[in-house]
């Protein structure tokens, strides 16, 4: 067959990767915005600790992050066992892959949004409050719209990280075709079997195309957002 035709398993890996990365990005966004706002605008006890925890996945070996997730969210882990009562299972499911990707992408998401919130002029927020906006409305109508370029950048970084996540995913949810086998783990598997080179190359090309596409889209969106809010 030609280079561009994929086997059903390869297709499944592409589809799953996109799903995992998208869910990871969207699910972590509200939490990411909230944490970024706390870190950018509030002073509280334990702020450095929170900042450290958020950034931990960036500096720890991914395998360690994956193992910690397994210990916490595994079927016998404290959180995993609790959530299992409500039918929410992460271990060895695609949802677990999404969780691993979200945790790994979270520092990048928070960092981009935090920097962007810090760049918003607090004088505009003060002006908004004198015009009758409560703290929540100030955030929704002034801070958030002006943070949009940072939010877009953070989302794309998180998405790209999720697309490439390997160590934490394979440690936490293993490498089950059709359930937790994403692009990187599929490529890894293909490189381990004789004659898998062609498939690995195809998936690599797709990987590059998706990453590049995401970058281009983010550039385009961020430029439009900046134009909209430029003073």
């Amino acid at each position, binding site marked *: 067959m030609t280079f561009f035709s994929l086997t059903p398993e390869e297709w499944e890996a592409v589809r799953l990767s996109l799903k995992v990365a998208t869910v990871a990005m969207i699910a972590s966004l509200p939490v990411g915005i909230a944490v970024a706002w706390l870190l950018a605008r509030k002073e509280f006890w334990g702020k450095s600790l929170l900042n450290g925890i958020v950034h931990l996945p960036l500096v720890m070996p991914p395998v360690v992050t994956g193992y910690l997730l397994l210990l916490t969210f595994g079927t016998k882990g404290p959180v995993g066992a609790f959530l299992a009562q409500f039918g929410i299972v992460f271990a060895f499911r695609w949802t677990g892959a999404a969780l691993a990707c979200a945790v790994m992408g979270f520092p990048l998401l928070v960092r981009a949004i935090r920097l962007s919130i810090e760049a918003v002029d607090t004088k505009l927020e*003060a*002006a908004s*409050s004198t015009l009758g906006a409560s703290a929540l409305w100030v955030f929704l109508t002034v801070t958030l*719209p002006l943070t949009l370029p940072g939010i877009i950048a953070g989302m794309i970084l998180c998405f790209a990280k999720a697309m490439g996540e390997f160590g934490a995913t394979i440690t936490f949810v293993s490498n089950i075709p059709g359930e937790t086998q994403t692009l990187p783990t599929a490529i890894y598997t293909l490189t381990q079997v004789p004659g898998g080179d062609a498939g690995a190359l195809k998936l690599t090309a797709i990987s590059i195309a998706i990453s590049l596409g995401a970058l281009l889209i983010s550039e385009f969106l961020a430029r439009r957002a900046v134009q909209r809010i430029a003073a």
Partner: protein
Amino acid sequence: MSLSIDVRHRLGSFELEAAFASAGGITAVFGASGCGKTSLVNIIAGLIRPDFARISVGDTVLVDTARGIDVPPHQRRIGYVFQEARLFPHMTVESNLAYGEWFTPKAQRYAARTQILDLLGIAHLLKRRPRDLSGGEKQRVAIGRALLASPRLLLMDEPLASLDAARKAEIMPYLERLRDEVKIPIVYVSHSVAEVMRLATDVAVLSQGKLAAFGPAAEIAQRLDLVPDDEREEGGVIIDMQVAAHDAGFDLTRLASGAGDIYVPGRLGPEGTPARVRIRARDVMLALEEPRNISALNILRGTVAEISSAGPSSVNVRLDCGGAAVVARITRHSASAMGLAPGTPAFAVVKAVSVSGPTAEPH
């Protein structure tokens, strides 16, 4: 509507302490930079939480630290015009204007949109973005945005400071119309003698955080000792007058007051129109006899009320002219040669006046 302010607040080693009450109109807060003007308005707006304060507008108490009252800034309904406009860059002019209006409960909205757009001359800017506006336009939109929120008090913190002379001249008439047409108290912060004397009803002078003087503008204007050194030349008096007649032949308007008549070029509006005349001390000469055959049009008769030092070589001579004051800055030498002393009858020859009023042409 009345305004009552009593504030004590410590910022590091700086202590702000001011108390005054005004019946309405424009209360100017005047002082050199760093004297605590902006802190004072930020406390009024609720952006700074003061150590002690009692602030009320009409019957509404905004802050009373002794009674534990502290209305949050977004519920104070105070229009705040900042020095740098602070328009929302992600919104059109129209959305900026509608912003405060939207947050104001319907029952409390009194601002008439078309009237305010008209008053400020901004109706043609609605579709534009703040970045496409000139400095003067931005500031007018900012004033409109504050007014459309139907505030109970308007705070203006050096609204003209970031503008050049031409833009200032463009906005001044709008501010005067605001004072005369909007029936809410206005607190106007400025370090410019000219602005304060042109606009203010009452003046509060702040010096290093303390209230150095408070009173009606005409009274404070006579206190040339309150004028900072770098604005020394701007010191002078203001007299509130009325249009008496217009001479079409020479195109001169005669203004009348208890102090006498003042002629100004141009037409100022129908008889009875109020007009404020500002006479700088350096623009006044004194004569012991009524000058004749002199080109100066405006000569006021009075008696010397007070002579005070204005530097090593000059003095300020305050003349009482039918209840109004005119101050002349002359050399100490002349004062001595003329034998001026309190009670001496004298004539003030006014070389230049500036006039402002609701219908005065900007010049």
